[in-house]
């Protein structure tokens, strides 16, 4: 297992170097001079220009610039926002819990609904139930989620007035962040109604973000179940006279879940891509909205740092999924 872990970790190193080259190249590929970009609209006098060039290291050859960039990253320096003047890493750490909270709720919803739906469709293969579940899943899979979010806002926030339109919690509540997760912090604050408010802000974004993973998980569960249900050991279990529920739940589902777990793990990238749209629609203060805003504000050092941090998170999660997969499915280790 340790060897498996180390090989997987070793494979990540070239990818990480590649990702850091992309982030490094980003600022240098932008049209125009990076220092003029940093200076913004005001312009800059030549003396200050040379000073900035020297202090940012842009006067050195590219390989040395890259090496300096890498050593900054290793020491935790991901640059400073041009707009807020705060370190990019600090901003990321402040906003990331909001995205984690949303993504976690979404993946939990997608799993809790997707797996039973897929199992049901597989067991009732060919019936109207199967067709309805798979038809719905295909609609979910084809959904432009930014539009889906707007529809939900029109219906639940506009017509029914059940849920708020944007943000994480109503402005009447204020408490210092402890964990960064609004659901937990609002409970800890002890203010009445705070948890309810946080929850009602979270519902629509969660549904929107969960839509595509849910459809993918339901489809994957169904096909994995169908494959497993045709196996000899399932027939044996049936022949032994085990009740169908036990055959499906214990013998079939357990084995069918192995590929499904990989699928769930692979949704991390999908979730973060979806978070860009979902957070923008619901003004959810997470890293997806942060990246979009930074692109629009031309805060390119944030975009650069954010790219690297987000890719880093995805790589780590994928590694963990790989390891879990190795744990539950020993065949893969060899």
């Amino acid at each position: 297992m340790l060897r498996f872990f180390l090989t997987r970790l070793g494979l990540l190193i070239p990818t990480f170097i590649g990702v850091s080259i992309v982030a490094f190249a980003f600022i240098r590929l932008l049209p125009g001079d990076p220092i003029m970009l940093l200076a913004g609209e005001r312009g800059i006098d030549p003396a200050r220009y040379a000073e900035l060039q020297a202090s940012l290291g842009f006067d050195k050859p590219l390989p040395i610039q890259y090496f300096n960039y890498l050593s900054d990253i290793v020491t935790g320096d991901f640059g400073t926002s041009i707009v807020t003047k705060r370190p990019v890493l600090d901003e990321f750490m402040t906003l990331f819990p909001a995205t984690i909270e949303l993504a976690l709720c979404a993946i939990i919803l997608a799993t809790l609904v997707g797996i039973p739906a897929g199992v049901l469709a597989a067991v009732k293969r060919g019936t109207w139930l199967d067709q309805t579940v798979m038809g719905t899943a295909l609609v979910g899979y084809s959904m432009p989620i930014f539009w889906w979010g707007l529809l939900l806002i029109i219906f639940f926030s506009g017509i029914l007035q059940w849920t708020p339109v944007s943000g994480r919690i109503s402005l009447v509540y204020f408490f210092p962040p402890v964990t960064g997760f609004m659901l937990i912090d609002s409970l800890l604050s002890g203010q009445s109604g705070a948890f309810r408010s946080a929850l009602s802000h979270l519902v629509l974004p969660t549904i929107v973000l969960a839509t595509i993973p849910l459809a993918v998980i339901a489809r994957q569960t169904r096909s994995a179940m169908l494959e497993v249900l045709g196996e000899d050991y399932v027939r044996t279990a049936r022949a032994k006279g085990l009740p169908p529920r036990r055959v499906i739940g214990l013998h079939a589902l357990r084995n069918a879940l192995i590929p499904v777990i990989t699928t769930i793990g692979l949704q991390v990238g999908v979730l973060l891509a979806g978070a860009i749209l979902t957070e923008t629609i619901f003004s959810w203060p997470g890293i997806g909205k942060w990246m979009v805003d930074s692109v629009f504000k031309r805060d390119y050092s944030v975009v650069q740092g954010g790219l690297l941090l987000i890719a880093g998170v995805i790589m780590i999660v994928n590694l963990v999924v790989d390891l879990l997969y190795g744990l539950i499915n020993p065949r893969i280790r060899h």
Partner: protein
Amino acid sequence: MTDTTTTPPVQTQLRRGRFSEFWYYFSQNRGAVIGLVIFSFIVFIAVFAPLIAPHSPSVQNRDAFLVPPFWQEGGSLTYLLGTDAVGRDILSRLMYGAQFSLFIGLFVVVLSVTSGVIIGLLAGYFRGWVDTVIMRIMDVILAFPSLLLALVLVAILGPGLLNAMIAIALILQPHFVRLTRASVMSERDREYVIASRVAGAGSARLMFLTMLPNCLAPLIVQATLSFSTAILDAAALGFLGMGAQPPTPEWGSMLAEAREFILRAWWVVTLPGLAILITVLAINLMGDGLRDALDPKLKKS
């Protein structure tokens, strides 16, 4: 297919047989046929938009701001699906929008399939360091969330439809590289390839004429799925203001323009999104049918 010139009758017959077999399995799938019908309808609208659209997609009517669809109070038959905030006919804009979406899908798929297949063939055929370098680069592209990478690429290239399409093609291309490479690696030691090599076929011929035709099935399925992903991603970029720019009647940017009227005029928000959903759904339905028809493993079950 290397010897089409020497034995044309057998080849055509074989091909026709293959097609009717494919059509048999494809038409078994009701969803796929429905998808095909809807898709053909959208293609028809896109091609004949200039003839069938009741209005110009860009003419603004000062007397008709945010007119609701005809069945609602205040609606009129002049503007069947209503007008937007500057008095443009939504139905006509949706019809012209179909042109953009289909063009985006086609352009992105052609670009990512050709580049992806060539790179994948090189990686799978030559192996060694060529393979390692190519696959590590693909890993890097796949390490980013697709939409984020597209967003950043568009920030570098500048907002606009062409740049958005190039960015989307780049993020979709690793899937074709991986698929092609995997198929080539399983084909390259088969007897027919070795026979061809012994007969003196060069690398290019082996890659493109001998092996590629036998690797097509998964590529066709992936191309269909990428077609719908391309439409969705381009609409998302348009929605974020980084894709097609107003006043282009592209569905995603129509949605972006309509956002502020979300609680006042449901039709300006609902209809463009519905158009995206129906188009993408039709393509995905066809994709499922294609997969079932082309995948020999599933045929028997």
